Every structure is written in structure tokens, then in C-alpha cells.
């Protein structure tokens, strides 16, 4: 019965949007009165359907006088209105409540002005958000084709400010531009959330016209609630946006929403520094951009989310509490690259795990490189000296064991043994004592003549080739057939000058195959 009554005035209700404001005051007052009042007040609404507006006027006026006479305090009124707000927020839970609360608004007299509660209503009005004014003229709003769009846009704007932070990517220093066309693009991302409202609206339409009208404020409040739920980070911004919207007296939805979002974005930027670590150091292949966010570069720069142009920048995000200018960012990237490589080197160089710090690490690396180079020299000297005995065994060196790196060293090779014995057969003057002294670990003790051994020792101890030969190198003719030989002659020249025990003069014309026999 009540529902019928409440619904019918709604059908006749056709206020303009501008007039909703004053009527809202009256409506809130009426609601307040309704809540506070007893059934007596309800009886007033049960007047016949015809001329309901007139009746309502009279009823309201009569009721208005009663609160004036009543001992209601201002605080009571505000409390009641807050109650209303809270109940409106729960409108979705109870459709019956919707009808109770919304329909009186649907049947307001346009010209009712209640100075008594005006101030209360005005201050509490913004707190109700958009839902209440929408409630007041549900029929008209739902009929308004732009309403849904405005509501959606408002919610998009609101939620976009929440999403503003996670999607602040791809902006270069010089390219911060406001691209309002992308706002809708951002908003499109939020459509899955906003889509709840059209779905709700559709659902509302299914149940009936009345609930359709009632559900639209539902949806808005739900939108806002969902938005606030889904963006816990944006809570503060949400509240700020709401506060911003409270201060405004229901201008068209687009302007307050735009201002609110700007405020929200400014707040976003003031907290701009994300704690997201740099992700792109290793991803050099991705076309990303260097980003530079400063606190001064406010909403204009971060409000947009342009599609990342395909450039070869490395995308770096400033960390929380760190400088954000481009120089320090680039330096940080460089430092991280260097530390990456130092870690790799640490794994490669043995015994570097305990060392911390780049300088000490570099010391270790230098020592290791030097030791490796010396080892190569040692081994080449060894091979050079050993080669004196290995004329015929070179082919054996091409055995698979050498190529197969996995084999262990102490693996005897039969052909080598035979060749080795052949050597010893060829060189009867070989000192057998030398072999007993042989140890694989030392370079100097190979199967060589004692003089050669001594030579090797002296040479290897010095670690450097003989510089004394440098003067005599020039005298040696270059063998064009063998590049290595010419290279060696150059190599002789390149060696730093060191004193050598060997006498260069005696080695004149060593290329001429001196028949010197170094015997034991």
C-alpha cells in the first residue's frame, strides 16, 4: 500500500535538474520528518493519488511547522540526515527501503523551501554524494541519456585517479604532456568495474520500473563503494576527492569530477615515489624509456598514460627516497650494471667469495689475470723446451684425448710412450738422472738436457723473454713463409728490457742451425 502511494507520485514527477536542489531540501526535511514522525506523518502521505503534489505541499507544510515547534535540536537533525545517508548507502541490501526512502523524494513539491532545515541539508548534502540527488530525480535521470554516461564518467575519473599511480609509465622528461583523450582510454580500463552499474541497471529493469529507478542510485553508491574497495591505496585520494566534491554544490558531473581527479592526481604525485625496483636492467631488449618523475612535475605529467613509443631507452623508475633527476638515474643504472658484472667475475675467479667491495674484487681479478698470463708463459716455455724432444710425436698429440676436454690428465697414451722411448733411443746422451727428477708440476724438469733444464729454469724464473736478444733480432732474416716466426721476432722486440744471464753474442745466426751440441 505504501509502495503504491509512493510510486504514483513518482510518475507524475517531472522536475528539472536545477530545481532539484531546493526540492531536495524539502525532501530531506520530509524524510526526516517521516523518520522521526510516527504513523501520523505517514498518514499524511496516504492521501488520494490525485493532486498529490498539492496534497503533498499541504502535508509538508503542516509537517514543517511541527518540527519548528518541536524541540528537535540541530544535532538531531544532522544525525538523522546522517542516518539517512547511511541507510541510503545500504540501499542495495533492501529494496523495500529504497522505496521507502526514495519515493518521498520522487514526489516533492518544487517550490517548497524550508528554511528551517536548509542549512542542515546543505551541509550534509554533499556527504550524500551523488546518490542522493540522483535519488531525488531518479525518474528523470534514468530517462536522461547523458546521465548514465556522466555517472560512468565520474566513476571512471575517480577510479582513474586511483589507477593513476600504477600506470604512470612511459613518460619521458621532455615528453610529459597532458593527453585528455587518453583519460577515456584510462577509463576504458576501468570499465570492467564500472560495468557493474549498467548490469545493475539492467537487473533493475527486470524487476520493475520502480526498482529500476531505485537501483540507479544504488549503482552509483555501489560504484563508489566498489571503487573504494578495489583501490585500497587510493583510499586517501578517494576521500579527498569526495571532500572536493562535497564542497561543490552539484554542478554538472563532469566539471567537479575533473577537478576532483586533478586534486587526486596531485595528491598522487605528492606521494609519487614508488618503491618498485628497477626491473629493466636486464631487459635490454625491451623498448622502454627512461622515466623521470619529480614532485614538481605534477598532475599534468602523470595524469596521462600514453602508449609507449618504441624507443631504445632503458626504462628506469626512481626508487623511494632517491634522487630522480636523469643523471642520477643513469648513474644508478650504470652502477648496477657494473655490480652485476662484478658478481659474475666473482663466480669466475676462485677465492673471491670472501672479498667484498669493488676495489678488493678488482685487485683479486687483476691478480688472477696476471697469474693466468704467467701460467701461459710458463707453459709455452715448457712446450718450447719440450719440443726439442718431440719431433716425431706431434702426430700423437692429435689424439682424441687432447680434444676431449673431459679426460683427466694422468691418462697415459700408448703412442706417446713409444715415441718417448724412441726419443730416449735417439738421444743416448740423455741423462737418465734427469728423468728421475722429473716432476710434472714443475716446468723446468722435463725430459731435456741439463743445460736446457738450467736454461729453462733461469728463463722461467725471470718470467720474461730475453731482452738481450732484441739487438740481435734485427739481424735475423724474416721468414715470410712462417708468419709466426716473423711474429716471434717482433715479439722479441716487444719484450721489455731485462737483464739476462745469456750472452747474445754467442747466438748470432741461430737461424743458421749452429751445430752446437749441448751435452751434459
Amino acid at each position, binding site marked *: 500500500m505504501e509502495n503504491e502511494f509512493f510510486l504514483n507520485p513518482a510518475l507524475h514527477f517531472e522536475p528539472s535538474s536545477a530545481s532539484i536542489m531546493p526540492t531536495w531540501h524539502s525532501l530531506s526535511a520530509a524524510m526526516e520528518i517521516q523518520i522521526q514522525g510516527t504513523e501520523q506523518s505517514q498518514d499524511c502521505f496516504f492521501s488520494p493519488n490525485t493532486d498529490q503534489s498539492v496534497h503533498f505541499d499541504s502535508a509538508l507544510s503542516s509537517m514543517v511547522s511541527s518540527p519548528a515547534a518541536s524541540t528537535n535540536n540541530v544535532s538531531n537533525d544532522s544525525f538523522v540526515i546522517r542516518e539517512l545517508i547511511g541507510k541510503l548507502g545500504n540501499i542495495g541490501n533492501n529494496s523495500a527501503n529504497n522505496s521507502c526512502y526514495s519515493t518521498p523524494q520522487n514526489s516533492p513539491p518544487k517550490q517548497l523551501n524550508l528554511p528551517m532545515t536548509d542549512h542542515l541539508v546543505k551541509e550534509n548534502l554533499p556527504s550524500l554524494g551523488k546518490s542522493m540527488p540522483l535519488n531525488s530525480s531518479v525518474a528523470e535521470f534514468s530517462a536522461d541519456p547523458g546521465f548514465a554516461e556522466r555517472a560512468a564518467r565520474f566513476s571512471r575519473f575517480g577510479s582513474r585517479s586511483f589507477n593513476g599511480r600504477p600506470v604512470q609509465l612511459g613518460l619521458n622528461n621532455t615528453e610529459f604532456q597532458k593527453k585528455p583523450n587518453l583519460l577515456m582510454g584510462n577509463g576504458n580500463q576501468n570499465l570492467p568495474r564500472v560495468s557493474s552499474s549498467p548490469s545493475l541497471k539492467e537487473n533493475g529493469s527486470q524487476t520493475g520500473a520502480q526498482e529500476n529507478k531505485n537501483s540507479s542510485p544504488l549503482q552509483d553508491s555501489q560504484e563508489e563503494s566498489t571503487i573504494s574497495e578495489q583501490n585500497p591505496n587510493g583510499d586517501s585520494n578517494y576521500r579527498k576527492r569526495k571532500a572536493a566534491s562535497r564542497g561543490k554544490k552539484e554542478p554538472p558531473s563532469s566539471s567537479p569530477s575533473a577537478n576532483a581527479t586533478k586534486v587526486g592526481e596531485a595528491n598522487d604525485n605528492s606521494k609519487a615515489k614508488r618503491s618498485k625496483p628497477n626491473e629493466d636492467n636486464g631487459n635490454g631488449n625491451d623498448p622502454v624509456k627512461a622515466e623521470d618523475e619529480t614532485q614538481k612535475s605534477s598532475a599534468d605529467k602523470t595524469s596521462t598514460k600514453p602508449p609507449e613509443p618504441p624507443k631504445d631507452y632503458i626504462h628506469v623508475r626512481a626508487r623511494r627516497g632517491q634522487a630522480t633527476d636523469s643523471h642520477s638515474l643513469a648513474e644508478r643504472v650504470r652502477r648496477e650494471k657494473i655490480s652485476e658484472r662484478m658478481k659474475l667475475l666473482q663466480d669466475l675467479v676462485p677465492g673471491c667469495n670472501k672479498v667484498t667491495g669493488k676495489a678488493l674484487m678488482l685487485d683479486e681479478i687483476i691478480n688472477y689475470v696476471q697469474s693466468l698470463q704467467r701460467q701461459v708463459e710458463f707453459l709455452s716455455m715448457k712446450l718450447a723446451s719440450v*719440443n726439442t724432444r718431440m719431433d716425431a710425436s706431434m702426430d700423437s698429440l692429435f689424439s682424441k684425448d687432447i680434444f676431449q676436454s673431459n679426460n683427466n690428465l694422468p691418462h697415459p697414451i700408448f703412442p706417446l710412450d713409444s715415441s718417448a722411448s724412441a726419443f730416449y733411443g735417439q738421444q743416448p746422451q740423455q741423462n737418465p738422472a734427469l728423468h728421475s727428477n722429473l716432476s710434472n708440476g714443475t716446468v723446468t724438469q722435463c725430459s731435456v738436457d741439463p743445460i736446457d733444464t738450467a736454461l729453462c729454469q733461469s728463463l722461467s724464473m725471470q718470467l720474461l723473454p730475453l731482452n738481450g736478444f732484441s739487438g740481435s733480432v734485427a739481424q735475423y732474416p724474416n721468414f715470410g713463409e712462417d708468419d709466426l716466426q716473423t711474429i716471434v721476432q717482433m715479439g722479441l722486440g716487444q719484450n721489455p728490457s731485462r737483464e739476462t744471464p745469456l750472452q747474445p753474442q754467442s747466438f748470432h745466426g741461430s737461424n743458421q742451425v*749452429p751445430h752446437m751440441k749441448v751435452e751434459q
Partner: protein
Amino acid sequence: MNSKRFSPTSSTIKSRFTRRFLRALLKINRQRTRTPSSPMEICQRYLKVKLAADVSMASAVGSRRAWSRAMLAKIRHGVRTGSMCSLTMMRKRKIYHRKKSTKEVGIVGNAKVLRKLVPGGEAMDTCSLLDETFHYIKCLSTQVKVMTRIADQICST
């Protein structure tokens, strides 16, 4: 050559280096005198072997790495210029050694030393220097391993 029969199909840096180095060793060995050689000869041969090792390692790596390119360039440059400039270079090196009084410490100083060690390291920034050092150390260690194996097999009785 017999080596081709035994060489594996996979061409790692190690196998390439081994093949080339052994070939060079053979060449050097062929130039040897029949009789046991003088220390001078051995020294020469030592230098030849050392250069052979460097050249074969650098060519095994190829032009992919800056240090190998630098090493090959240096060797070729040395070959082209001939032995005439060796004396002048020697004198210059003497002078440079005398001036080495002040040493820089820290990362920058170490980086300088590293640049001298790694071939072609002077024309690189620290970041790529560390890259090249990494690869250079890897190649040096394989070189040492192969050479020790060869030497051990030659020396083993």
C-alpha cells in the same frame, strides 16, 4: 693433416684453440734443429709458442670480442711494422717504467691496471671492460688447461 681425423665436430672455443695451437706447435717444431738447441733457440721458440698460443686463442674467439680483435690487430700491426720499430718501442717502455712512481688506488686505479692487462682495454668504459675481462679470463683459463694437458702428455713418460 691427421688432426682432422681426430677433431670433434663441435667447434667450441676450446677445440678450435687446441687445433690451431697444435698446428702451430707442429710448425714450430718443424723448424727445430735436429740437435738440441741453444738457449737462444729455446727462447725464440718459447716466444713463438707463446705467440702461437695467443694468436690461436684470439682467432679461435674470432672477432666477436673486443679483446680478441685488439690482440689480433696488435699482432698484425706488429708484423706489418716489422722489427725496425722494436728498438724505439723498447726505449719508450724504459721511460714509461721510470715514471711509474705514483699509483692510483681504488676502483679507478684498479681499472687502469686491468686495462693494461686486458688487450684492447684502454678504449673501453668500465662496464664493457668488466665484460671483456670476464670473457678474457674464461679464455685464458681454457688456454692454460689445454696447454697443461699438451705439456703433460708430451712430458709424460
